[in-house]
């Protein structure tokens, strides 16, 4: 799913409802060059703000469970690379029937679970059915509901029949953990096929991963990985400064960066994230029903200045919902320029020459209050008065997301490929363009990725021209690490954090 608000500190933890909206995974390139000799028996400590609520990603484990277990403990039939490409992982090969409805997967040989059991097609069937089961809280449940039947003609073959064509099917499969069908309750235990097996989990504190010696491929570079959990970015940075952790999965406090940048004991890297900060209009509520009004607001806000003040020059401007790592990315920043004169002209054309007043529902945690104040000041210059209403994540979920009772709101949308939500007129922001809805549907039923990409580019351009929302900026993905470690993911797209290549000297 595509909204999530738990990104910052203690108050943000309240956003459990939103935190459960799991994010995607993206294979990440090995980052950072280490100094010194690699110690294969090392324990790597990773500091994170996202503790899993339980260890099951179909049971509302939250973002943290993806970060710690995805790719490390559990593997899928496919995995996503850092550039957004889908690669086979537990599937050795697959064929698609000419009508695009039947997928036949052949499993890789010699795969065993941590418990010692051999991987068979029955485990894959079980894992797929688990995701779409009625009780499943999986973020991908809706996408994968196109699965009609899963058959297992032999232990090495899985045949999946879809109810309708779905070009994203293989991509969506990269979200599905293949679990041992005999494992039972996976909320506090784990049995996967990845390079690490679950170590000790101390709730509220840490989660350990131990190298799985029976791994079929390249063994994990370190003997142990321990995720240590913190509730705020300051505590996390202190732990890094006092050698309590070796690296931090995602730096949330730009103010602290200078302390690391000018210190040879640390390395700071910046990759691409998929997290967009949105000023989302209620496109079904006046005056935002009018394209001109939406464009006027977009033109009146200086995104660059906002990004500068919040992230001090890190991050990127985007003119639409599409981050550079999505296949249908185009630079559309020109469609959404900062131009107060244009804003005034558009307002006059729309019949609001004297401006208007609206309420901005603002989640209470960073960076929303800062962004809201900034936006209010900018819009005041073109005569638009903004009333800022600060709300908790829980209220946001009920008032804005469920009841759609708002004029405009601020929110982070973290997932890759979430442009498609503009094709759903019932989504909270209420954007309704039947042409766009049709393109989104057709894109999903495409025969080739090229066809899909072409259609979604059209969606991208149209939503940008119609200022369906105001896309303020794309977050940076900053990893700060001790110079003793190397091989960590730079982009860590969405929430995953592959730890198996991390080396420590």
């Amino acid at each position, binding site marked *: 799913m595509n909204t999530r608000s738990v990104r910052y500190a*203690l108050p943000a933890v309240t956003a459990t409802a939103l935190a459960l909206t799991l994010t995607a995974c993206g294979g990440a390139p090995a980052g950072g060059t280490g100094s010194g000799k690699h110690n294969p028996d090392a324990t790597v400590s990773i500091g994170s703000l996202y503790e899993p609520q339980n260890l099951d990603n179909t049971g509302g484990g939250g973002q943290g469970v993806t970060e710690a277990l995805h790719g490390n403990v559990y593997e899928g039939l496919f995995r996503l690379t850092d550039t957004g490409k889908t690669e086979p992982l537990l599937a050795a090969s697959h064929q698609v029937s000419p009508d695009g409805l039947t997928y036949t997967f052949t499993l890789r040989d010699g795969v065993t679970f941590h418990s010692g059991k051999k991987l068979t097609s029955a485990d894959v069937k079980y894992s797929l059915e688990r995701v779409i089961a009625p009780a499943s809280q999986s973020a991908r449940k*809706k996408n994968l509901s196109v699965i009609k039947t899963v058959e297992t003609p032999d232990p090495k073959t899985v045949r999946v029949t879809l109810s309708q064509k779905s070009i994203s099917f293989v991509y969506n499969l990269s979200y599905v953990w293949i679990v041992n069908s005999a494992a039972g309750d996976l909320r506090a235990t784990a049995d996967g096929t990845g390079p690490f097996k679950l170590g000790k989990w101390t709730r*509220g504190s840490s989660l350990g991963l131990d190298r799985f010696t029976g791994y079929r491929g390249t063994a994990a570079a370190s003997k142990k990985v321990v995720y240590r959990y913190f509730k705020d970015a300051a505590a996390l940075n202190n732990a890094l400064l006092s050698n309590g952790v070796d690296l931090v999965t995602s730096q949330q406090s730009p103010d602290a960066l200078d302390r690391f940048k000018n210190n040879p004991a640390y390395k700071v890297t910046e990759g691409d994230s998929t997290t967009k900060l949105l000023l989302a209009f209620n496109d079904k509520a006046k005056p935002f029903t009018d394209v001109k009004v939406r464009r006027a607001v977009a033109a009146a806000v200086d995104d660059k200045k906002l990004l500068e003040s919040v992230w001090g020059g890190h991050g990127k401007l985007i003119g639409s919902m599409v981050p550079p790592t999505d296949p249908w990315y185009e630079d559309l920043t020109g469609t959404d320029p900062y131009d107060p004169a244009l804003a005034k002209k558009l307002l006059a054309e729309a019949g609001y020459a004297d401006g208007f007043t609206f309420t901005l529902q603002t989640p209470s945690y960073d960076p929303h209050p800062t962004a809201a104040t900034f936006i209010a000041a900018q819009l005041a210059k073109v005569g638009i008065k903004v009333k800022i209403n600060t709300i908790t994540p829980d209220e946001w979920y009920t008032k804005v997301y469920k009841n759609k009772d708002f004029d405009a709101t601020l929110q982070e949308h973290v997932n890759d490929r979430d442009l498609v939500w503009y094709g759903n007129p019932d989504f909270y922001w209420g954007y309704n363009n039947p042409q766009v809805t049709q393109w989104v549907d057709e894109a999903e039923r495409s025969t080739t990725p090229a066809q899909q990409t072409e259609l979604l580019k059209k969606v991208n351009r149209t939503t940008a021209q119609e200022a369906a929302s105001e896309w303020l900026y794309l977050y940076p993905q900053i990893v700060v690490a001790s110079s003793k470690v190397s091989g960590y993911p730079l982009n860590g797209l969405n929430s995953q954090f592959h730890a198996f290549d991390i080396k420590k000297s």
Partner: protein
Amino acid sequence: MARYLLRRSALLLLSLGLATVVLFILLRMLPGDPANALTAVGATDEQIAAARAAIGSDRPLPEQFTHWTGQLLRGDFGNSFVSSLPVGPEIATRLQVTLPLTAAAFLLAVLVAVPAGFIAAHRRHTWYGTLLSGVSQLGIAVPVFWLGMILVAVLAVNARWFPSGGFPPDGWADPAEAVRSLALPVITVALVMSASLIRYVRSAALDVLGSDYLRTARALGGTFGGAMWRHGLRNASVPVISVLGIELASTLLGAVVVESVFALPGLGSQLTTGISQHDYPVIQGVLFVSTLAVLLIGFAADVVQRFVDPRLRGGLAGGAR
């Protein structure tokens, strides 16, 4: 004394029962629905209804209450809504952080504050007596989280003598490592606690110093130290004991702040996480344990006071209690 203990125990149980009802009702008045925390954004109404049914939050309140208290009587704290793991064992694990932290901080504070308070009273006209009073006055104004952050910056981040936060993944398996993790939080809490304790000890000591019986004792030939030991300490300790009880209880409850500064997996952080997730069984469990602890501390303070001061027992001076 036996009758008193019996009556006091009955009162304790009654208070615990009342507190249980109150905390149960107050929790249900919190805005927000625990089912939201269990379902993904975009969940259908059926999914949310299923989540409510799964955790039993759709059942009538009296039924939920009797279910919970019934479990409690069997020593079962129920299962977390969010993780579906049992709450009781988790509370026990987290007490392994919070109890040593509170107890050590309390002991350290008493060890510092009792002598310091007496010195501040007895030597109030010297420079160090004045300094002690001044510093303790200042200490009362210092917030725990601020002091904690300063100590982290100085002793953990710069000097690297202590870890800046967290608790060893293996808990007390390596006691030295566990003690090192708790050192800074203990010092932080003890410093803040002793500041206010010094004030109380000082004023109790001042009362004693100006009392007739101490003058009499010295007039009868006792040394200051001897008179203080035989009569002064005992009298001064009566008001101090109730303050100690209150301090101990508030430290236990105040663990939330220091645990969050030092990223400790204690009872306090369990409570804040539970609250943020509307995880009623967790919140109820933690609050129940804390309430019980606070009531027990009050009970102990009363009993110790009666033991120390015979007047409270016989109803001679203070009247029957």
